[in-house]
């Protein structure tokens, strides 16, 4: 719930960066259309990018809380 909200708040920036990373990862030499394996790669890459975003976000949040507790 919360993760989706964070994602929506900055959806445009997230979509741009995710598209860029996944295009670079999944498209070697661009052909005349996205073939099946490229499309699957992009869908997986998106899911992993959002997983990674959530992992990074949680790790950063925990660290902020630890730093505040130590002040």
């Amino acid at each position: 719930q919360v993760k989706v909200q964070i994602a929506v708040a900055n959806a445009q920036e997230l979509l741009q960066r995710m598209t860029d990373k996944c295009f670079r990862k999944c498209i070697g030499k661009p052909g005349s259309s996205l073939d099946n394996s490229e499309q699957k790669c992009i869908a997986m890459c998106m899911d992993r990018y959002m997983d990674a975003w959530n992992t990074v976000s949680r790790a950063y949040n925990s660290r902020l809380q630890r730093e505040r507790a130590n002040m």
Partner: protein
Amino acid sequence: MAELGGEAEAAELQRLVAAEEQRARFTAQVHNFMEVCWDKCVDKTGAKLDSRTETCLANCVNRFIDTTLSVTNRFAQIVQKGGH
């Protein structure tokens, strides 16, 4: 140039500004494509762009747009289902 009335002038100005903004967005997007596609498609810089490189560049633009659309649609579906 003939003088324009206040309203017509304002409308004309608005049209010009909108056209200028659209051109700026187009240009920014082309810079963005170049950032991705130049490194992907242009290895050597010879006396002219060979047709393979030209095709690669045009495909690169189109596949990048396909990727953007595909990512955006899939993201919208995930958000609508309310979680991922």
